[in-house]
């Protein structure tokens, strides 16, 4: 089992003919993702990587019955792409672009809520469900394997580091999901944990958090209801306040978003918070015992 993304999803790639879109279409298909079409205005009727290209999401949905889409367009066009997908019936939307204006993200997630659609990102590496053999994202294919651990992260490469360590320790994953590094994104820790709660195959959850915002503090309130062991690693112990650490959302502002506050909240709620990324796998193994 997995959360949110299964092998049954029919996936579109918006911006498939660009460099990134093309490369990751190939990677996704190699992993097993059911990519049924790509969108590139003016290039309808052609093929990329053996996948048909359509001029619009409307055409693609009509022809293929797609219900999911991954967006690779430049940030300035992300809002348009997202709305095009949502208004044409796409109900699982993964937004890869970084530097999407926050007001655009607010508009996207608000519309998605109204439609009952799921948005992952923006500024995310996506979602991968190893047991289902499918992914929508830019993560490397070889570092995951099926197993009982759910992973939810705010950061890409750091989650790769941790997922690979889990895999090497024999601890596979149900689903690994990137919330995205922006201040406003479609998923919260709580919304993802809620999915992990209802997935019987997920027996433990790893949270990869970082400084900035209150997402970890808010998540701590849900841990009791989750009822499964949680191991958390939080990045940014050595980061000074007031500085944006790469991610638009990774900033301690006016005393909010400190690592200390997150660590305290999660620990008090029963999570095992480890200090260094290489301690995660052992902590998960203990939690599963």
């Amino acid at each position, binding site marked *: 089992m997995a959360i949110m993304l299964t092998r049954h999803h029919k996936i579109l790639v918006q911006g498939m003919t660009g460099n990134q879109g093309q490369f990751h279409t190939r990677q996704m298909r190699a992993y097993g993702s059911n990519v049924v079409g790509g969108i590139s205005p003016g290039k309808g009727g052609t093929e990329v990587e053996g996948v048909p290209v359509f001029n619009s999401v409307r055409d693609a949905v009509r022809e293929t019955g797609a219900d999911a889409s991954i967006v690779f367009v430049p*940030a*300035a066009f992300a809002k348009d792409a997202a709305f095009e997908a949502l208004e044409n019936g796409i109900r699982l939307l993964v937004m890869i672009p970084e*530097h*999407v*204006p*926050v*007001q*655009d*993200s*607010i*508009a996207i*997630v*608000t519309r998605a809520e109204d439609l009952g659609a799921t948005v992952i990102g923006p500024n995310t*590496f996506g979602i991968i469900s190893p047991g289902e053999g499918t992914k929508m994202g*830019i*993560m*490397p294919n070889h*570092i995951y394997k099926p197993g009982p651990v759910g992973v939810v*992260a*705010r*950061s*890409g*490469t*750091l*989650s*790769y*580091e941790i997922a*690979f360590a889990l895999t090497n320790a024999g601890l596979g994953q149900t689903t690994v999901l990137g919330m995205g*590094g922006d*201040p*406003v994104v479609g998923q*919260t820790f709580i919304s993802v944990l809620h999915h992990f709660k209802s997935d019987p195959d997920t027996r433990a959850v790893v949270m*990869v958090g*970082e*400084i900035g*915002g*209150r*997402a970890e503090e*808010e998540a701590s309130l849900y841990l009791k209801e989750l009822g499964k062991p949680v191991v958390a*690693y939080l*990045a*940014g*112990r*050595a*980061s*000074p306040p007031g*500085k*944006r*650490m*790469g*991610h*638009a*959302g*990774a900033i301690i502002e*006016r*005393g909010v978003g400190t690592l200390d506050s997150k660590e305290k909240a999660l620990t008090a709620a029963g999570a095992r918070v480890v*200090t*260094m*990324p*290489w301690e995660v796998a052992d902590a998960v193994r203990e939690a599963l015992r």
Partner: protein
Amino acid sequence: MKLYEYLAKEVLGKAGVPIPPGRVVDTPAEAKEAVAAIGPAALKAQVLVGGRGKAGGIKFAATPEEAPAVASQILGMDLKGYTVERLYAEAKLDIERELYVSVTTDRGAKRPFVMASSEGGVEIEDVDDAAIVRRHVDPRVGVLPYFGKEMAYDLGLDGTLAREFGALVEKLYGVYQEYDAELVEINPLAVAGGHLVAADARLNVDDSALYRHKGLPRVDEGTPIELKVRDLGLAFVELDGDIAIMANGAGMAMATLDAVQHFGGRPKNFLDAGGGASVEPTAEALGVLVSMNPRVIFVNIFGGITRCDDVAKAILQVRETRGIPVPLVVRLVGTNEQAGVELLAKAGISAYSEMAVAAKEAVRLAEEGR
């Protein structure tokens, strides 16, 4: 991007927010002219930090004659690390009371958020929760005058002030939307002569949205080297340690800083070389680290989309073209790891596979060099 007070007030004034008469002052002579024109005035340092008053960055000049001397006390002074290069002369207000109002984004709720307080003039974090009124905005509906008026009633305001407050919140929300603001804040929001007026203002604009605000002046914030590296399109923060650090991805870069600190070392910087950077940008980033004269350079790469052989090539390129005169610790795993490690080995550089071991070694070498 943070705007200086005078720029924020220019934007707010245009939007119809009541602001006191004021003008920009760059020299003591201009201070005299300004006070002659607007009367008794506050001379306010234009720097991007709060708490200017307490730090001596705001002083009053009652007459044009005393204005130059007051201005020269502030111009050129160091205010919490910023040199004061410009003042804003603003008509002195007879303040009856001070309030607070701001529009920002609540990350967790994914909604615009209005916050107001009956106690202004201090940082909002220091205000007693009971004095604060908070309200989310439904972005589909926006803000109409009733919205702020209700908040005003909750603050204990009535009559003219409640009506003015309602109109004010509507305008502030308009600025928040039109300028892609992260924060629009008026603190203190003064009551003077029975009316609301913005005594101080902050306007921070979402960096990701700057492309659609070409008319706004650009305010660069950062050390010289931070500005230089950001021009290359890389996320960079200067710190005060001696171990220069490069990693791929923001989270990995933060975690690398944490690991160095964990073993007792001091990071000299934060540098995210990007989640999928190729040879050239990686070499450029590494070149920056060399130019900072660190004791040690620590490169920590988990190759996902980034290919380890590209990173190895970048390292070798920098070594050949400009030289790397300090110890280099490389941790390299993931995509094309074997090829990358072999390239480095041929050049006499051994790469680590464990992040912990590599971080420890970087710290040891830095201590040795001290």
